[in-house]
């Protein structure tokens, strides 16, 4: 028996799918940029043991790296209102993405900074750089370039993981897919298409981040 594929539903839902993709990308970009910013802050305070931030960061990183993303999301969306913090779906989804990525990038960036050769630090010291100057002019860029592949992977993982946000009705791609298949009862085609879209997005993000990394390295040749 041959299953008859039927993709004729696509045009009717094209706009909706587009919005879902945009939502997913929005979560990823927003989570990526703010997450990496949090990661840099976290890496600095943990590396130099800046109190009380180092302790706070350590608790935060351990908490978010050792619990499921879905539970983090529920805690934010269903738990925080008890503290009087009411977030609508997209706000909760964004916050969860940012916090989750922030925790992972803290560890990744910390590893990159820690791998700074001692000679680099001594060269900066001997030129009378302060610790802050050494960080910004000598450590940060080589460290980010070094861990860029790891950060890129983490960003793709987070993009894929954002599908979980459908569980609080954030209208990202998986939410849209669930909605469509509940209407057309074409589960196989709908999720097949969704799989293809996620795959395409992941490949695209990887390529894009790879290009950014190569550009940052190659920029030196041009400057």
């Amino acid at each position: 028996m041959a299953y008859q594929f039927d993709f004729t539903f696509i045009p009717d839902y094209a706009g909706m799918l587009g919005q879902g993709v945009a939502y997913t990308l929005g979560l990823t970009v927003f989570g990526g940029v703010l997450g990496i910013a949090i990661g840099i802050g976290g890496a600095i305070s943990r590396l130099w043991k800046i109190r009380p931030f180092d302790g706070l960061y350590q608790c935060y990183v351990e908490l978010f790296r050792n619990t499921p993303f879905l539970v983090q999301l529920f805690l934010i969306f269903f738990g925080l209102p008890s503290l009087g913090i009411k977030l609508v779906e997209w706000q909760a989804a964004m916050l969860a993405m940012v916090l989750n990525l922030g925790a992972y990038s803290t560890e990744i960036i910390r590893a990159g900074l820690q791998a700074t050769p001692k000679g680099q630090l001594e060269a900066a010291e001997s030129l009378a750089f302060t610790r802050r100057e050494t960080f910004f002019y000598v450590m940060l860029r080589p460290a980010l370039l070094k861990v860029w592949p790891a950060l890129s992977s983490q960003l793709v993982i987070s993009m894929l993981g954002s599908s979980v946000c459908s569980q609080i009705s954030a209208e990202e791609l998986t939410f849209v897919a669930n909605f469509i298949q509940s209407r057309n009862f074409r589960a196989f085609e709908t999720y097949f298409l969704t799989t293809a879209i996620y795959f395409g997005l992941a490949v695209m993000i990887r390529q894009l981040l790879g290009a950014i990394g190569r550009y940052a390295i190659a920029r030196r040749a041009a400057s």
Partner: protein
Amino acid sequence: MPLVQTNRLHKFYGTNHVLKGIKLDVEEGEVVTIIGRSGSGKSTLLRTLNGLESIDDGTIEVDGTALVAGEGDLRALRQKVGMVFQQFNLFPHLSAGQNVMLAPQVVKGTNKREAAEIAREMLARVGLDQKFDAFPDQLSGGQQQRVAIARALAMSPKVLLCDEITSALDPELVNEVLTVVRRLASEGMTLIMVTHEMRFAREVSDKLVFMHEGRVHESGHPQEMFAQPATPEFANFIRSLH
């Protein structure tokens, strides 16, 4: 008054007493070479002079800026003391020119145009004005070390510390670096070096300092010291070179 002066300098690594009351005077324009076996404390002594190693007791004074038992204005001291390392330690993400420009811009607030001018001038001094835009990994070891010298010179230091700056180089690249150092010496730059290039040390040094077990064991004019070692330890050291 000497340009660089240390008094009763003591340094411990845990219970290991590595510098035992060093007194060292270096006059302006003098070239001083510190020699000794590994573990004698010569590199440590050099590194205390710009605060890369802390000291446990004693004083260091460079051109009026003093460290007393490690307390003092390190940033001011470091602006007067340049350093060149065995492993070059150029910043890999910056071009040769940018490596030289960075410290004047960041530490002294020199504007970019002026810093670029300084960088061109310093790179020309080490014979690398053509390599302004090259990156460290595109340069040979000898060229990298010359950029590192230019980088240190760009801060107009009063004294330049050279910590075994030819030890990591292939033999055929040693000379181009020594030529630069020789020229700096002849231009009147105050130099304090740790080196294993004994022939070079004898040739350019005004003063030789032989360290042994954390002390200045013997010091003086290189020709005289080599001709007539005053201590059996230095005599042994010379013999071990051949």
